[in-house]
């Protein structure tokens, strides 16, 4: 089987991304080795459900410039090279804003007098472990007060690369940089939404992102039965299929709040999530043939 990466995203927060991601991973794990990557590095929660045995935690680091003021000739080339406004040229010295730095190294490259050394700036941690010897679990966690989630998402994905045939990426909410960093190399995106005007509004934002990246996607409507039919009406005229509907049920809410996984406390969902995966495979295969 070729490697397949499926990202779970939503736009709106609290629609059930992690419920879907943990259920999909759990349903597939008996048959396949699965990577589960929690990319919601500002508030990771996949571990609360999967309860992995963490075997290793390492720092996530970006390299930030340190300027040797003795060597610096205040030419300003590093300031011009910085795309992220992390450097300011004062009258005779350069001021560094480490929290704006993306660690790209451009300043070091352009410095004509080698006045810049790169020093490690820890911005969080990356943990890995196993769930029942079948799910390889990875989680990035951004340090509180650090403003930049994307480097840690990229690093977590890099550490997890090429371990399993199936990779499940649990995305952060929203439709901004950290979501793009999660989904940009995915083969398929599952958009989890709820049938309310709020769910639809943010779903449209994600569909806007996907029209830029060109990624194939489908929609899961969670808490079906609440709200209205606006999401279904909207999707009827789009190229995004409805993959599954999960009705609103008190029991689901109660068990999820207790940290349980949907396919475990409602075994009928196990087959539905396996079917979901098969459906995604079919969509991706038809795309390949279509080209």
């Amino acid at each position, binding site marked *: 089987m070729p490697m397949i990466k499926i990202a779970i995203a939503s736009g709106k927060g609290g629609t059930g991304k992690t419920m879907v991601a943990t259920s999909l991973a759990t349903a597939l794990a008996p048959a396949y080795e699965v990577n589960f990557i929690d990319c919601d590095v500002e508030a990771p929660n996949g571990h609360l459900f999967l309860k992995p045995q963490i075997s290793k935690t390492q720092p996530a680091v970006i390299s930030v410039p340190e300027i040797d003021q003795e060597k610096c000739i205040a030419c300003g080339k590093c300031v011009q090279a910085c795309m992220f406004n992390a450097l300011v040229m004062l009258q005779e010295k350069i001021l560094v804003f480490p929290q*704006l730095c993306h660690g790209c190294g451009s300043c070091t490259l352009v410095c004509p007098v080698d006045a810049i050394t790169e020093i490690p700036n820890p911005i969080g941690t990356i943990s890995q472990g196993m769930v029942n010897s079948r799910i390889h679990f990875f989680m990035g966690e951004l340090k509180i007060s650090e403003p930049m989630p994307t480097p840690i998402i990229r690093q977590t994905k890099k550490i997890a690369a090429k371990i399993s045939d199936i990779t499940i990426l649990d995305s952060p909410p929203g439709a901004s940089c950290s979501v793009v960093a999660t989904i940009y190399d995915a083969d398929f995106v599952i958009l989890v939404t709820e049938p309310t005007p709020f769910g639809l509004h943010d779903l449209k934002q994600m569909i806007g992102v996907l029209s830029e990246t060109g990624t194939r996607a489908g929609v899961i409507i969670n808490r079906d039965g609440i709200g209205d039919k606006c999401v279904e009406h909207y999707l009827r005229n789009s190229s995004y299929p409805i993959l599954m509907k999960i009705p609103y049920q008190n029991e689901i809410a109660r068990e999820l709040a207790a940290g349980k996984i949907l396919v475990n406390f409602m075994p009928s969902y196990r087959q539905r999530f396996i079917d979901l995966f098969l459906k995604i495979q079919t969509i991706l295969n038809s795309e390949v043939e279509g080209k």
Partner: protein
Amino acid sequence: MLIMISSEGKTLESQPSLRFGRAPNFIKVNLIEDDWEAYQNPAIDQRGGAGVKAAQFMLDQKITHVLTGRFGPNAHQALSAAGIKMITFDSSCNTVSEVIEAFKNNLLTEVD
């Protein structure tokens, strides 16, 4: 003395902008020569670090006093390191001219 005022528009009758890094325009006023000039904020379309880039613009323009509604932490740090004085006004000033008058009459607050 060269002062810079964050502004929504490009004239002295424009509404002053309460934002610094994301202000649409800046009005530079030379109080000694009684002369002024408008600039588009070069940081307006930056994804991040707008305050720092706008602060760099103040440095490059050799500004001595910056007048705006509020300074963000990065802009504050950069301007402070550059020795540029930071002055705040509030929404009671309706035009850039009113901000200048208030500054001349010492009615505005300087930020530490």
